[in-house]
């Protein structure tokens, strides 16, 4: 199981909806992958909050036609199957709006200037913030991914794999040379790329 496959099955795993063999492969990958463990840890509070949401949300009658038209199938006349419950889509939509605003604010602040001695601490703080934002956005994207065409999902996964690979490589280098300002800058840049890409991908789920 790859990292992307694990993340795609996160919700099913949390709901205990995976088959025994799939759950076993999920756990096997998780045990050997520090990045997925971090992803899961970051996602847990959000999963708990999502679980606590109401199981049914009745939209106001005048809003329903617009929402319904957005949920309708796209592409060559085939009707899409929705495997994600409506309450989760609604929760995801709320999350996406909130996250997009929060992430936009966060990104627009940019790195703060300060004494060189505090640069490493600032880089670590930035990395933690980006990691948290990325985990939130990845979760929101996961919940709404059935609204995207399979080809778009494949493109998103391909790009995320490139970013994740670069991130892992630069983090490994930084672990071997802690305090290297250039490596810190490159790690933060990779996180920024990831958050920006996830923001764009989640926006697609509501725009298209």
């Amino acid at each position, binding site marked *: 199981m790859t990292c992307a496959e694990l993340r795609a099955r996160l919700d099913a795993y949390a709901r205990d909806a995976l088959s025994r063999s799939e759950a076993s492969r999920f756990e096997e990958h998780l045990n050997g992958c520090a990045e997925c463990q971090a992803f899961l840890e970051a996602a847990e509070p959000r999963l708990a909050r999502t679980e606590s949401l109401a199981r049914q949300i009745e939209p106001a009658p005048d809003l329903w036609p617009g929402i319904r*038209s957005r949920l*309708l*199938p*796209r*592409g*060559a*006349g*085939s*009707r899409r199957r929705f495997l994600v419950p409506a309450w989760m889509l609604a929760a995801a939509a709320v999350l996406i709006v909130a996250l997009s605003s929060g992430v936009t604010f966060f990104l627009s602040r940019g790195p703060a200037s300060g004494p060189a001695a505090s640069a490493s601490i600032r880089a670590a703080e930035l990395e933690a913030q980006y990691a948290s934002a990325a985990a939130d956005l990845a979760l929101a994207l996961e919940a709404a991914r059935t609204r*995207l*065409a399979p*080809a*778009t999902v494949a*493109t*998103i996964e*391909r*790009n995320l794999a*490139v*970013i994740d690979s*670069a991130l892992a*490589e*630069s983090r490994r*280098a930084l672990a071997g040379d802690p305090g290297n300002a*250039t*490596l810190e*800058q*490159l790690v933060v*840049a*990779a996180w*920024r*790329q990831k958050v*920006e*890409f996830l923001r*764009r*991908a989640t926006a*697609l789920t509501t*725009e*298209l």
Partner: protein
Amino acid sequence: MRRLAAGLAILTAIAVTGVAAQQKIARRIPIAPDASIRIQNLPGTTRVIGWDLDTIAVTGSAPAGTTFYMGGAGRVAKLGLESDEKTGFVPGTGLLEVRVPRGARVWVKSAVGSIEVEGLSGEVDVASASGSIRITGSLRLVTAETMEGDLEVSGGSQLVRVRTGNGKIVLFRPTGDLTASTVAGPVQLLDAQPASARIETVSGAVTYDGTLDRRASLEIQTHSGEVDLRLPPSVSAEFDLYSVGGTVLVALSPKGPAPKAAKGKPQFFTAGGGGANVVVRSFKGNIRLQGRD
């Protein structure tokens, strides 16, 4: 309150026109010269053309499975092709050619279709999931995003913000402030003379071919993408070039010292007395600085 009124105006003015298979579209409405216009054409090609009339004119064709809609009044309007509930649409079909006042602010969204914009002087915000985007002209603001389509911007717009996943970005003759970002797609700035440029890729290669004014700033950052700078040998700039695991090759002047390549070492130097600021950072991409005629 004004926005609410404008929104209500749209809702009341909106006229939805159902069309059968591949029907021709020919509609027009009066609009303010600086209007905000939203266009959504998920399946097909969209062409936006600026003109000198205070009118939106739409021609094109609505393919089977789509409905054309258009409405607006005063300073706001919206139009597009919407997917029918039962049949859906065939991707890649349908064409909207939309003429709008030159100074309009235009927002265009597409899923698979390409988007072309020309003749505008206002603002555009363009996004497509997999279609290509081409914008020509000198605008106040250009914002364009695609997931995997190619993106081309020509002309000296004041502010340019472009982003793709694995699509290619080409910027011809940029002169203003710009930021360009890709994951795996290459970025090319050709005949460039930007006031400031910030380019960021993960694995995409970056090519900068142009010149720099004394007050310009150029920042490039990649993870593994190669960086190729082609500048006049007479350029006045301070250079700060560093690839952690790649090679930096400096061969700016054919008459100067022999090209020197350095691996894993930052290269700081001043050319032509300094002025512009050039910073390139890469994790393992090679960096080349070469002279151009």
